[in-house]
């Protein structure tokens, strides 16, 4: 049985995505531990440059799967050749970044082998068993998880969990072109169009200070008075986590996170935001983070520079007053 680890590489604008390079970084650690090789699969059309990039960044063998039906991503066009590749390759593990795209196809590849996916992995222990750590209950707990089934096994990795900085440059991996047989009727999802985000009416990416609120504010009125009130005295932009937008307290343009904007202000104030990873991805680059939350175990405090454990309804009015007093001095 082969001990090789396969990384499914996603790409954008002719370059491997960061999430895929992070998967490559973990694949190198796992392959070394298992005594196997690091392999990668690049699917697309006209993506040889991506394959070469990945062969240089530490993959020993890159499988290049090109076909005109792979020019646009669809789960069927990805799934069918990947299942063939995994069958032939006999890989021990198949890894991918836990991107929206991987969530849309990786379980379909896994199920062809009767396997589920160890999804959204944040850490790994390499011993007799491969033990993955996953955030559960919205990051309040970490579950050490194993897949007791036979190879191939599948895992997807949380963005940012495995730094890609230490990948080599100029690694001399080989690129192997694989024939891909796909016919249009096998591709059940027909992509009609991809809509860009367009010009954001609210651009949070340039804001120096952002005050964001979350579900814990309870209702639209409280959100407006507390988040809006603090933002006014700070001269800050207003942001929000996903549930706020889903509940229509604020339009989508204010959303910070994986499906909203990625921001890097000098100061980010998170009010009653629990700190789900989907939100944290969008604000991790902030210089200073203040979090106010009732739950001292809320994951947002892991991202915070300063934290206050308490009820936003008491803390925020006090903060507004303290800022006004400081200004008056």
């Amino acid at each position: 049985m082969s001990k090789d680890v396969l990384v499914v590489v996603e790409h954008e604008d002719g370059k491997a995505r960061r999430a895929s390079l992070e998967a490559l970084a973990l694949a190198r650690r796992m392959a070394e531990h298992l005594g196997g090789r690091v392999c990668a699969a690049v699917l697309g059309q006209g993506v040889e440059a991506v394959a070469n990039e990945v062969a240089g960044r530490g993959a020993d063998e890159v499988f290049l799967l090109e076909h005109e039906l792979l020019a646009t991503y669809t789960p069927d066009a990805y799934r069918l050749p990947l299942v063939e590749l995994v069958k032939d390759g006999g890989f021990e593990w198949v890894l991918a970044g836990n991107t929206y795209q991987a969530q849309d196809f990786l379980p379909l590849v896994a199920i062809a082998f009767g396997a589920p996916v160890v999804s959204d992995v944040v850490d790994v222990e390499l011993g007799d068993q491969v033990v993955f750590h996953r955030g559960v209950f919205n990051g309040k707990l970490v579950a050490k998880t194993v897949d007791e089934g036979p190879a191939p096994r599948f895992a997807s990795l949380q963005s940012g969990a495995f730094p890609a900085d230490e990948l080599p440059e100029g690694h001399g991996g080989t690129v192997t072109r694989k024939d891909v047989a796909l016919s249009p009727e096998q591709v059940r999802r027909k992509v009609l169009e991809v809509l860009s985000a367009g010009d954001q009416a609210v651009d949070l990416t340039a804001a120096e200070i952002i005050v964001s609120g979350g579900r814990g504010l309870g209702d639209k009125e409280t959100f407006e008075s507390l988040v809006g009130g603090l933002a006014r005295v700070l001269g800050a932009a207003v942001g929000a986590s996903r549930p706020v937008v889903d509940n229509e307290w604020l339009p989508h343009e204010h959303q910070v996170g994986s499906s909203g904007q990625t921001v890097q202000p000098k100061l980010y104030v998170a009010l009653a935001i629990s700190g789900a990873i989907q939100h944290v991805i969008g604000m991790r680059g902030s210089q200073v983070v203040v979090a106010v939350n009732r739950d001292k175990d809320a994951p947002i405090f892991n991202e915070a520079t300063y934290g206050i454990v308490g009820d936003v309804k008491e803390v925020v009015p006090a903060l507004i007053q303290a800022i006004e007093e400081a200004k008056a001095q």
Partner: protein
Amino acid sequence: MKILVAIKQVPDPDARLVLDESRTGIVETDLQWEVNESDRYALETALRIREGQGSGEVVVCSVGPERARKAITSGLAMGCDRGVHLVAPEYQGGDPLAIARALVAVAKKEEADLVLTGTRSDDLGWAETPLLVAGLLDWPAVFLTIGVELQDGALKVTRELEGGRKEVSEVPRPAVLAIQSGIYPVRYTSLKGIMAAKRKPVDQPTPAELGLSGDEIGRPGSRLKILEMAPPEKKGQCEFIEGDPAEAAKKLVEKLRLEAKVL
């Protein structure tokens, strides 16, 4: 058209959680439970499709112990027609593949034309069960659905992409759609709906009745095992500011001005 909506009951996202003795789960007593957030949007989407058609049936299904009956009742109160509760002990404690096998058996028995689910549960958060269901049924699936329009024998589906982009595609039926939170505003449950829910049937099929053997479902049917749960390691960089709100606020503003120099 018959739509099967698979939902999960999860602890209130703001609840304080306590690990149980085995350290592989949480203490369930004294917890508030609710229907998982994105699953509520799946229920809303199913009801809108049925209302748009003017006919059809929406069946709400959940795998879970006795307490999960309340989640099914919430779905019925919103307007679903019937419930299926996989309550037998053999179904419980399964990994996403074991759960998917049970849901597939229900979809087949019900002869569903469409299976809707949420995207990710606020407990174990595997975010893969709908795709495993699709794979086992050999139906197409869309993850992170933010728009659905019914067409002749097909669906026009909008899928969320990263950074606010969207993909619009055509998908043949039958299909599995994992619905993303926020797709449509979720309706409030009326008193009339709550009363009507009490009279709606809820089946509790045994594994044998669904043609499932014990080694396909629950713990025996699972290959993913949780060895241990623990609180995440604190990065330890957060400085907690103590005191009553007025004191804490004052100290914080001072630190932001003099220490962090961001005000």
